[in-house]
């Protein structure tokens, strides 16, 4: 960085080129790291998806769309895609409606705000792998407290995580639990930003009930926040991996296989890097589509005012 220091001497009469050299010198470490650790590997991943490369193989061949046609016929992949969509479709509304309800309850009074916010936020900072283990115990078919409670009222609880009927629902419930606090904090920020005079005005205009005030003031004013939370939660939950890896490994019989776990298995267990890269590209396409949706939503947000 000494060259940056040398540049400072003529700084007062520096021309545009001097400033450019300074700027690139300051940015050089970031530029190098960006190229080597982000841009090139990403481009390599895209190229890899069109090869049959396997780790340790002496050579590889370009196979065009071969990996993608194989994906189309791969029932395990189809299952992973369906399960991921199911997971997003349950976790998104569940964690958003739950967070909104709790945010409204917390904001409706002044007592206990900090305490409740901390309680609901706790899962966000907790080690997912460890908490997944706690959930495994909670949901254990024979010794788990949940089924023990169900037995008390005469219901034989299912094997939550090892039956193909319930495993995705169980994972989605854990997903809601994980995401709730994050969304709650975003909603609380959105609620505090609503001008209080609007509520007073609504009351004067004859909207005395809490529901009417919610419908006329809170919900429309919270619209941009809600749309934003919606896309963020979708992008976050497409990435589901930790709980699947720890609790089910995609089982039983692929019943809880998800995109990133399928990509992990192909790439890092079977070392079929080309095929795994094709799954990665499908994952990337979904994330990009959601981000595109998000920019559309944010554009709208600007028009709202």
């Amino acid at each position: 960085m000494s060259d940056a220091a040398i540049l400072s001497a003529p700084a007062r009469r520096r021309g545009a080129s001097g400033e450019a050299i300074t700027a690139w010198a300051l940015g050089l470490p970031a530029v190098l790291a960006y190229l080597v650790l982000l841009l090139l590997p990403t481009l390599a991943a895209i190229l890899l998806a069109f090869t049959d490369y396997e780790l340790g193989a002496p050579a590889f061949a370009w196979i065009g769309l071969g990996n993608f046609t194989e994906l189309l016929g791969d029932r395990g992949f189809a299952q992973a895609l369906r399960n991921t969509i199911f997971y997003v479709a349950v976790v998104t509304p569940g964690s958003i409606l739950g967070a909104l309800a709790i945010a409204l309850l917390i904001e409706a009074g002044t007592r206990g705000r900090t305490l409740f916010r901390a309680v609901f936020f706790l899962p966000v900072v907790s080690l997912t792998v460890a908490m997944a283990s706690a959930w495994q115990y909670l949901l254990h078919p024979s010794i788990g407290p949940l089924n023990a409670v169900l037995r008390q009222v005469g219901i034989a609880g299912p094997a939550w995580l090892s039956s193909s009927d319930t495993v995705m629902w169980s994972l989605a419930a854990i997903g809601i639990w994980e995401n709730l606090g994050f969304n709650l904090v975003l909603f609380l920020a959105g609620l505090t930003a609503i001008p209080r005079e609007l509520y007073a005005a609504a009351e004067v205009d004859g909207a005395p009930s809490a529901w009417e005030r919610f419908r006329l003031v809170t919900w429309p004013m919270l619209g941009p926040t809600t749309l934003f939370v919606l896309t963020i939660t979708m992008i976050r939950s497409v990435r589901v991996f930790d709980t699947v890896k720890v609790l089910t490994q995609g089982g039983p019989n692929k019943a809880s296989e998800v995109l990133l776990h399928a990509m992990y298995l192909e790439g890092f267990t079977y070392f079929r890097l080309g095929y795994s890269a094709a799954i990665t590209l499908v994952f990337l396409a979904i994330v990009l589509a959601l981000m595109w949706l998000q920019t559309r939503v944010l554009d709208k947000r600007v028009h709202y005012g």
Partner: protein
Amino acid sequence: MVERENSLLRDMPRLLVLSLLGLLLLMPYIWMVAASLKPADEIFRASLSLIPERLAIAENYGRVFELVPVGRYLLNGVIVCGGILAFQLIFAIPAGYALAKLNFRGRELAFGAVMLGLLVPPHVPALPLYAGFSQLGLLDTYTALIAPSTISVFAIFLFRQFFKSLPDDLIHAARLDGMSEMAIVWRVVLPNAWPAATAFAIFSVVAHWNDLFWPLIVVNTPEHATPALGVLFFRTTEGDDDFGALMAAAVVMTAPLVIAFLLAQRRFVEGIATTGLKG
């Protein structure tokens, strides 16, 4: 919302509902701690009593500390998270400053590259990075754990936005005093960037302390395992039956970040709410 002097009595239903929901959300923690204190026979009886009849702290926690290098895992977590954060800041702060306050050809291009990087989840470059580290014989090292996360386009973006709002006069004054641009970055700009830096630090540490995906890929021995991977190793060595010890391990590995959160709650929530927008 509506500011009303609520009496405690009128506020009761609201507090009650929130408490019940909070309790429901805390169930995994409550049962995790309870099971970590119980001997195996009590756990297998599946009684609904939270209080152990016989405390088995020494058994369960003792087994954790005896079987797994807990200190090692926690230390690895600190080294990896600390290393990542240090490099992220060293790379991102000067770059963010250059993008915000300096005029140069290619600035639009550089900023476009940052925006492009924001679109790519870290799972996408993982395969080629893994192949590269494997070629270089760097698997199962701190380098492999830390290096891929050292460049955070999100940090560059965040600091650029933050530095843009700093008054130009501040920087002009420093230049007139004969300070080098590097000195301006670290001695004038950074002290004003603490709110952004703290928020980003919390976001980064929480994300990497909890990350399982990348450590799982590049590390396969306890020597370099992070806490998340440590819990996974403990599960495979101990099997799924020893819930008392497993819950004790979960408590030990979860505790550091949760305690930090409880001590600096407001900063955590703000840090993650402002930066976590990245998703």
